């Protein structure tokens, strides 16, 4: 993805292309700041709970069996022992917010990567070849849109969710859990057994990933359709660049703006879809939390225990704003026409 191939762009930077992108990104201060925020949230999600538990001796699934002074109220406001307060079962919210972050971030990133990989390749192919191929490919996307993904999730959970999963699915899941465990043990967290709730999250990832690329494909196709008759593409074609080369070296870099922006938009929308599925009982398995499910719990108590919404909301909001800053930075950095240098 070099800016040199751009026929109507600004002068080439003279540095190697990758370095060019990186250096432009580094000069974009909001983007760098966003990266720091994201890094902090990721680190806190990875090792925060373990460190906090080691310091205070509290674990995220500890539910006091009864609470002194009348057992009814278990929601305690932020204090030194509970920096973000407790939820309505009396669990520490700091732990839950950052453990929930693991799932929310994973779901968001997984789905947006899928949407990038499949959506861009699919949309670009359809748009570039046009004609009948485009027609058929886009009609397939239309139909996938129309099939209720709720039903797909229900069926997938019931077919593969229990102990009656086919071996192939089990192996994939086990590999996935093994990977997660490896990551989590690096982070000092306790591993998860295959039979526990994380089993279900895998299907959540697949389900959300499988629908998240559809809009991306449409957007990319539209952009490619409008760009493919521009002079620089015609020029590339006339000097004999291969089709593959035209699509991946010339077209895609030139549509990176909408693509990156839409990819950053995918993350919040997938996080919300996850929250909605959790609400229907098809999402993240209790007692694991996610930012979406924490917000859904918090909103019920907003009038009385506002911290139960404020903290998950704040962390989620900060992360999304950070992702957005990074997205804008990447967009500018990738943009072959970027005048900002």
């Amino acid at each position, binding site marked *: 993805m070099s800016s040199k191939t751009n026929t109507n762009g600004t002068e080439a930077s003279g540095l190697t292309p990758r370095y060019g992108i990186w250096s432009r990104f580094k000069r974009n201060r909001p983007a760098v700041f966003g990266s720091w925020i994201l890094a902090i949230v990721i680190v806190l999600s990875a090792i925060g709970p373990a460190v906090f538990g080691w310091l205070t001796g509290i674990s995220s699934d500890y539910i006091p069996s009864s609470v002194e002074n009348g057992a009814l109220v278990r929601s305690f406001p932020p204090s030194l022992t509970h920096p973000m307060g407790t939820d309505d079962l009396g669990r520490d919210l700091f732990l839950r917010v950052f453990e929930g972050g693991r799932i929310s971030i994973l779901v968001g990133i997984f789905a947006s990567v899928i949407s990038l990989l499949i959506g861009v390749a699919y949309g670009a192919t359809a748009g570039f*070849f*046009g*004609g009948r191929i485009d027609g058929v490919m*886009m*009609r397939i996307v*239309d*139909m996938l*849109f*129309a*099939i*209720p993904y*709720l*039903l*797909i999730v*229900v*069926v997938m959970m*019931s*077919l593969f969710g229990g102990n009656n999963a086919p071996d192939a699915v089990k192996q994939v899941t086990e590999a996935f859990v093994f990977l997660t465990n490896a990551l989590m043990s690096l982070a000092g967290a306790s591993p998860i057994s295959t039979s526990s709730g994380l089993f279900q999250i895998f299907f959540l990832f697949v389900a959300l990933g499988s629908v998240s690329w559809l*809009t991306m494909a*449409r*957007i990319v*196709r*539209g*952009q490619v*359709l*409008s*760009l493919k*008759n521009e002079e620089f593409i015609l020029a590339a074609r006339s000097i004999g660049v291969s089709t593959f080369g035209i699509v991946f070296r010339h077209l895609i870099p030139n549509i990176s*703006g*909408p693509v990156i*922006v*839409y990819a950053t*938009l995918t993350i*919040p*929308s997938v*996080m*919300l879809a996850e*929250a*909605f599925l959790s*609400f*229907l009982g098809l999402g993240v398995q209790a007692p694991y939390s996610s930012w*979406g499910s924490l*917000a*859904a719990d*918090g*909103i019920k108590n*907003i*009038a009385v225990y506002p911290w139960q*919404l404020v903290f998950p*909301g704040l962390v*989620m*909001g900060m992360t*999304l*704003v950070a992702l*957005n800053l990074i997205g*804008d930075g990447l*967009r500018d950095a990738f*943009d072959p*026409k970027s*005048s900002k240098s």
Partner: protein
Amino acid sequence: MKVYIFKRLATIIPMSLLVVSVTWGLIRIAPGNFYLSEKKLPAAIKENIKKKYGLESSLVEQYLMMLGNMTCRFSDSDDSEGAGLKIAIRSRTLRCFDFGYSLKYEGQSVNEILSRHLPYSAVIGLLAFLIALVGGVSLGAVAATRKDSRVARYLMSLSMIGISVPTFVLAPVLVLAFSFGLYWLPPARWGGMEHLVLPVLSLSAVYLAYIARLTRTGLIEVLKSDYVRTARATGLSEARVVVGHALKAGILPVVSFSGPAIAGLLAGSVVSERIFAIPGLGNIFVQSVLNRDEPLTLGIVAFVSILILVCNLVVDVVYALIDPRIRFGER
């Protein structure tokens, strides 16, 4: 162009039937059925139910029966029951688009449920989309033209908040503020215009934010292109350049996004319908899936799939109209 549109229209019915067939398969694979409940039914009652709803015949027969209901079939009896089109041909009746009766809501036909609840979702969905489109495009345009200003940054972070605040959080917060803080608007239910404000606002927020962001990036790309530079060079004012020339091309990603978005909005949103107690289609659809109410699910899926296909066709036509670089059917 006309030929192209006609061709596309012709594919809609078979495609929608394909979607319905896949959905039918999924429902049959999904565990449980509409009469499964906490209480174990005696075998005799189960038999009676199977007989009554035609679940005793073979799967192939049931599938063909379903397809017949969805399209057209001859019925020998001239019973008054059932909905859809009825065309008398000699002694027999041709019945079309009769989606059958709901299994959960005894005595209500799917056609009736669809036509009764669609208007609610449609009114709210269309209003929300209009607000999102007008608001989002203007916000995005402002943010794009003043790309590096403080105003633009605020607008964009505000729109990011719009995207990251789920409807199930935004709606209750709006209710608390406008119904119990200010006592301006009713907290829920369907009624006069004042009942529409909160659902429409909470539903449009996410879409508005999306459209604003997509407009901004689209415009930023276009504003750097040659023809805009040319337009500027001719001495047009910046506003006329943006509105008259750049916006047309810069809005393309928004147009792509709009197709499915309109279809989704018209078909209703579960969360806001539940929170505001609106009798819309979205909630009914989710309930029908959870209840395994097969005719109702299939009816709604058939309708929504046609809606999506039509919306996407419109989007593609709009595409060609606003961007002359795109031509149909070319290689």
